[in-house]
């Protein structure tokens, strides 16, 4: 690299170190809020850190759509209940246009019969809009196990990669950042489950796992900036080093976060019901990931003390130069 390094030498206009008290207190508050949500959820009748959906508990969910001319005629929910297996839960959707039923896992034959019974009470139904999901109880626990395993594997994978490319201190920071992002997103959904009955399904697990890989991007960019600065300014204090790195990357972090959030926002608004909470989880997670690259890792890094480790980057791009 033969370019000048003026941009790295310039005095930073923004110093995150000055705001560290605010950042750390906000983080502490958010973490307490999340842990509290998870504990309350555990103590409540839900009796789990997050309200588990069909994918985890197993069971059958049937959703039907009624054929309505202008408005939907009322039907007796008591009559409907009589037709259902014991312990089943009924919900009406879209101002009575749709009906959803949840019960213990049914065989395909039983589900088919149930749809016919529902049809007798609330019909006529639009047959092509019926949705049946049955998850065996065994599959639910398998999903939980494989999701947790995937989470651990990707944590370890990221940690190994960062310690190879940077240093072990940064790997520890990356893990802190990942755990923070996953914890806060889970915490929010614990509250959503407690207050609004929002359930987590396999898509939520996917969202968390995606965040486990993606949300660290912004933080890695900060690490990369520090590494670059160290070649020009090796003798700065840790605070100064971090402040300069954050000042040099903050705009990029915000822009990237916005650019990633925009399609997710479109997904929340127009993606339909199936993807709604998945998109919300991603939206929140990406925002938290952006925040942790500014407000979590930079203020915490100087607290570790000592000098920041130095390692040269072996990567460079040479296309058509």
């Amino acid at each position, binding site marked *: 690299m033969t*370019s*000048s390094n003026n*941009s790295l030498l310039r005095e930073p206009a923004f110093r995150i170190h000055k705001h560290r008290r605010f950042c750390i207190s906000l983080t502490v508050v958010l973490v307490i809020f999340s842990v509290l949500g998870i504990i309350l959820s555990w103590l409540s009748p839900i009796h789990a850190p997050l309200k588990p959906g069909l994918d985890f508990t197993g069971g059958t969910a049937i959703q039907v*759509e009624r054929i309505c001319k202008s408005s939907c005629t009322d039907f007796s929910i008591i009559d409907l209940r009589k037709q259902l297996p014991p312990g089943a839960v009924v919900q009406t959707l879209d101002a009575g246009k749709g009906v959803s039923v949840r019960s213990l896992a049914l*065989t*395909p034959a039983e589900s*088919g019969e149930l749809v016919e019974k529902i049809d007798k009470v609330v019909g006529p139904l*639009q047959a*092509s*809009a*019926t*949705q*049946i999901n*049955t*998850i*065996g109880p*065994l599959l639910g626990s398998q999903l939980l196990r*494989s999701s947790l*395993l*995937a*989470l651990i594997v*990707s944590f370890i*994978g*990221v940690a190994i*990669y*960062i310690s190879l490319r940077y240093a072990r201190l940064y790997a520890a920071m990356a893990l802190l950042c990942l755990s923070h992002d996953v914890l806060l997103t889970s915490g929010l959904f614990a509250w959503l489950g407690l207050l609004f009955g929002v359930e987590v399904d396999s*898509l939520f*697990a*996917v969202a968390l*796992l*995606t965040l486990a*890989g*993606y949300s*660290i*991007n912004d933080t*890695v960019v900060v*690490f*990369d900036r520090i590494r670059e600065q160290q070649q020009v300014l090796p003798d700065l204090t840790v605070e100064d080093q971090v402040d300069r790195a954050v000042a*040099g*990357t903050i705009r990029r972090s915000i*822009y*990237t976060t916005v*650019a*990633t*959030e*925009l*399609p*997710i926002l*479109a*997904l929340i608004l*127009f*993606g339909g019901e*199936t*993807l709604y909470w*998945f998109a919300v989880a*991603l939206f929140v997670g990406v925002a938290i990931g952006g925040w942790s690259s500014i407000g979590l890792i930079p203020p915490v890094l100087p607290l570790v003390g000592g000098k920041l480790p130095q390692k040269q980057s072996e990567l*460079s*791009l040479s*296309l*058509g130069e």
Partner: protein
Amino acid sequence: MSKPQGWLALILALAIGSVFVLRSLPLSLGLDLRGGSQLTLLVKPAGIVKKIEPNKLEAVQEVLERRVNGLGVSEATVTSSGENKIIVQLPGVQDPRKAADVLGTTAMLEFRAQKLNTEQEMTGLMRLKRLLEAKLDQLAGRGKSKPDPTNSLKDLLTSLNLPTPEAATEKEQLEIILADTNRRIVALFDPPAFTGTHLIDAGRQQQPNSESWEVTLRFDRIGGDQFAALTKSIAGTNRLLGIMLDGKSISEASVGPQFATAGITGGSASITGQFSAEQARNLEVQLRGGALPLPVEIIENRSVGPTLGAENVRNSLVAAILGTALVGVFMIFIYRLPGFVAVLALCLYALFNLAIYALIPVTLTLPGIAGFILSIGMAVDANILIFERTKEELQDKNSLFRSVEVGFSRAFSSIFDGHFTTLISCAALAWLGSGLVRGFAITLSIGVLLSLFTALTCSRTLLHLLLSYPALRRPWLFLGSPSVL
């Protein structure tokens, strides 16, 4: 500057190729987008098989494939998943009941002779069974049977002094008694003389002057000999020939004395249980496909109607287009000309991405599309890193051309690291997840890898191209912060 031109030619060639691919190869849509049923079957260990070996899973898969073909669902697929699961996809099927019936049972056919000296007990049990079935038919509203079985059934139950099972309704009580009766009938037969492995074909036909159907069987040579021997051994006695399916007796027949010398020869037989047309057809499909070497259980059933699927496609299409448009507006607003280049690169990215889906082919599911939409945002991330770097170089009073070059090469290591960590978690998801989860991980991985290419190569080449027009070499067109320039 020959290299950028080389890249440009490559990009153009890829773009034309992608359009061509998308025109000739249709994207394959998952069942949640086109409507249909997906059944997941768990293969369970039984008998001496304690662990499901890959060859056993394959054997089960083959039988299921034959049965699915017998059902006549077009484009149905049977794939194995993990160590012990098989996924059956039935496009267009909204009510998977019939398929579940046919696929979910083992269909192990056994031919057995009745034990010696059990004739009297058998007669009693058979009478009880017929009465129970008649009564159940009557309760279900199908009862045309005369005389009314109620009284004689009551007498018989009292005389047998059976304990009344605890169940809510009369129907359930009778069903429990019937199941028990069937078990006792099965117990009166000898171990199987031979099994359905000696079948070479099965068919069905309607019985003359009747609504019920029979299933015809044809044996191979060994099966034919064994059937002859079996029928010979009971011919002319009052003992019955029992045909059991999965341990349940589906037919009990007596063999006339005329077969006492040679047995029933010719290698064919028919089962004349009281089959409905559909039952006969199901049994035919199952017997033709062969018995499952291991029992299966349906553990997952996802059925989506085609209207819902179409709605899902529409929703995700709107979200994808709107998402791309929003990102485009944002990038042009922030970065002006380079932003425009990034949007062009993004469009190329979407085009290449869809072409790859069609080529591999990747079956698009709802989570898969979500992965694609998410990767749109991630794809511009690399451009943002590059342009921020370029901006810094411009602030240092470097030339436009040089700033762009430095921006690209300096941003590379952090772009690479960021993409790599995302790929690590995608790999974990694809490796450990199944079904929907894997679909998402695969589309996201393709997106991440491809965005490395488009953000670095495409936007760089396009930017070079634009920089070759002096009219466009104006600082205010670049990166949109004239105040600092």
